[in-house]
């Protein structure tokens, strides 16, 4: 028995019971659709987290100065500036695993322009900080070494600050006041969006380190900084960089072997990787749950094929009488199950893709449809068809022709 013929018989048989075939397919359609939509949602979440990691800057370490103890109270990390600009320079120049290091002073300041004002985090740092975070400007220019050397009264605005103070206006070249000092806006930073924990990364102002030290933060502890942002040379050297920084700073701060560090090194990428990992787990979990519905769809196919074999026992008998072998009957029913599941799979793909588009449209949830997920769920549907179609098909093939002919 040839293949195109068997296909035609299968289509004809399925066409006779359109309602039933449709409902049976529905199981597979929902299964495949769910798998595709769930994988799309899961990998969308993963992609967003990866994007956020990239937006934080890659291979990022943050060295925070130590905690202060006063009157028995211990304050949190960074409460006492123990790091100096010189520490940062040493980290940048002496350590092999470090690409850039930038000393950072920060504090919340009120920015005023005209009759508008806005409280935001102001970072006083060197141009390397923006390199570390891989953060370009969209308007004007970035901070330069000359700005730092000359303690220029210039600043860069994050998108959120620019929007709040200037609205539609172009901020570049305007004068804003930060803690009563006039600063010229030289540039606006590119939009970075939110961090994983929902913090607005664009609600920020950058000024040169020296300007910050002199005018904004540095009065109490001259030459001290709150933290140092460090970029390691690559993802593999993160651990090494962490060790090297710890060693160097213990030396520079003359910390004895039995004393605690007066600083701490944080690996932010690691924290983000954990978030990424959890997104991956979520994606797998969603996919697995959706696969169960595909499995249930397969059982639906088996059920309907069993009914069909019983119903068509007489037909099977006739076919056997005129010379169909067991395997001809087996193929006929197997191909019927396969056609059911593959058509279901195709429709499921369309619905799954459509559903993911709708989710990203209406719920602003990022979705990512991969060809692999499509192929995987389609072939899985085919596999389900063969697996659950085999038992009924074999049952049909093993019928006794005489019994089958007598069956009404």
């Amino acid at each position, binding site marked *: *028995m*040839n293949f195109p*013929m068997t296909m035609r*018989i299968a289509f004809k048989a399925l066409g*006779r019971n359109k309602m039933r075939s449709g409902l049976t397919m529905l199981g597979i359609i929902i299964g495949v659709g769910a798998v595709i939509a769930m994988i799309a949602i899961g990998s969308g979440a993963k992609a967003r987290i990866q994007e956020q990691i990239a937006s934080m800057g890659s291979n990022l370490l943050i060295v925070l100065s130590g905690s202060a103890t006063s009157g028995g109270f211990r304050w949190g990390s960074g409460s006492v500036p123990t790091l100096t600009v010189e520490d940062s320079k040493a980290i940048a120049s002496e350590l092999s695993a470090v690409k850039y290091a930038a000393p950072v002073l920060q504090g919340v300041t009120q920015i005023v322009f005209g009759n508008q004002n806005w409280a935001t985090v102001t970072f006083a740092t060197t141009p390397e900080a923006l390199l570390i975070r891989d953060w370009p400007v969209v308007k004007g220019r970035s901070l330069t070494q000359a700005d730092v050397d000359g303690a220029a009264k210039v600043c860069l605005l994050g998108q959120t600050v620019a929007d709040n103070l200037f609205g539609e206006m172009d901020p570049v070249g305007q004068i804003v006041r930060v803690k009563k000092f006039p600063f010229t806006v030289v540039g606006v930073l590119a939009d970075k969006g939110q961090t994983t924990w929902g913090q607005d990364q664009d609600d920020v102002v950058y000024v040169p380190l020296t300007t910050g030290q002199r005018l904004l933060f540095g009065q109490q502890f001259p030459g001290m900084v709150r933290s140092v942002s460090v970029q390691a040379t690559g993802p593999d050297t993160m651990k090494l960089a962490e060790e090297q920084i710890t060693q160097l700073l213990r030396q520079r701060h003359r910390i004895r072997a039995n004393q605690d560090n007066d600083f701490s090194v944080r690996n932010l990428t690691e924290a983000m990787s954990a978030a990424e990992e959890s997104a991956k787990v979520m994606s797998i979990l969603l996919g697995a749950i959706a696969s169960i519905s595909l499995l249930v769809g397969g059982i639906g196919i088996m059920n309907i094929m069993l009914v069909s074999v019983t119903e068509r026992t*007489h*037909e099977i*008998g*006739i*076919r*056997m*009488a*005129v*010379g*169909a*072998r*067991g*395997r*001809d009957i087996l193929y006929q029913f197997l191909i019927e199950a396969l056609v059911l599941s593959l058509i279901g799979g195709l429709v499921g793909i369309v619905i799954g893709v459509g559903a993911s588009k709708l989710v990203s449209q209406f719920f602003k949830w990022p979705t990512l449809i991969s060809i692999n997920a499509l192929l995987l769920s389609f072939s899985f549907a085919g596999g389900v068809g063969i697996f659950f179609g085999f038992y009924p098909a074999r049952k049909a093939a093993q019928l006794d*022709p*005489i019994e089958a*002919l007598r069956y009404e």
Partner: protein
Amino acid sequence: MSELIRVEHLVKTYHLGEVQVPALKGVDLTVQAGELVAIMGASGSGKSTFMNIIGCLDRPTQGRYYIEGTDVSSLSKDELARIRNEKIGFVFQTFNLLSRTSALENVELPLFYNSTSSRDRRQRAMEALISVGLKGREHHVPNQLSGGQQQRVAIARALINRPSLILADEPTGNLDSRTSLEIMDIFQKLNQDSRITIILVTHEPDIARYASRQVVFRDGKIIKDESFQPRQAAEDLSQYPSPIEEGAIP
């Protein structure tokens, strides 16, 4: 005349739980090519079991069955299916056509299972339908055809692979007497003009008269086997007073 079928001491026993039911108790029979044999007997006499074995639908418990010299009693299921496809055409009392399937496709059915090209298949099916007088009805489905017409479709299906043997199990059992005559006329023509061997089971002596040989079964054994001059269905048909036009539902 060459020997088409030879059965030697055929025994078939059914197992119904603990009880053994003998259906055939040692049957010997030889059928020459070109014979038209009527097999008769009351129900339970073993004639159906015999036909199932002759038709390669069932295998004997004991004994040998040769068709065109080939020992069929030891063949596998698949090989039996092949013999059914190539050498045997079946005609049943209840027609056994695929419902909701056109006459043409019903006739084509045996050709699906021996890799005939689709053009060839269509052409041969058309020819077979024309030969049983069903030109113009090829796209009707069984429930649009009268009983006689359905039986003709079944005969066309049996003929499609140019078999050496046609097995007809009570072919006129569901038909009125005039239509029965028409069917017997077709069988006689096939037998006399195309030299096709036909074995038909019937319990109507009227029908058995059109065969050239009558074999009677009782209790799993042949009790009578005699040849004689058959009546001609065509003659009887011409004497039918008012031929009723077969009222096919269009």
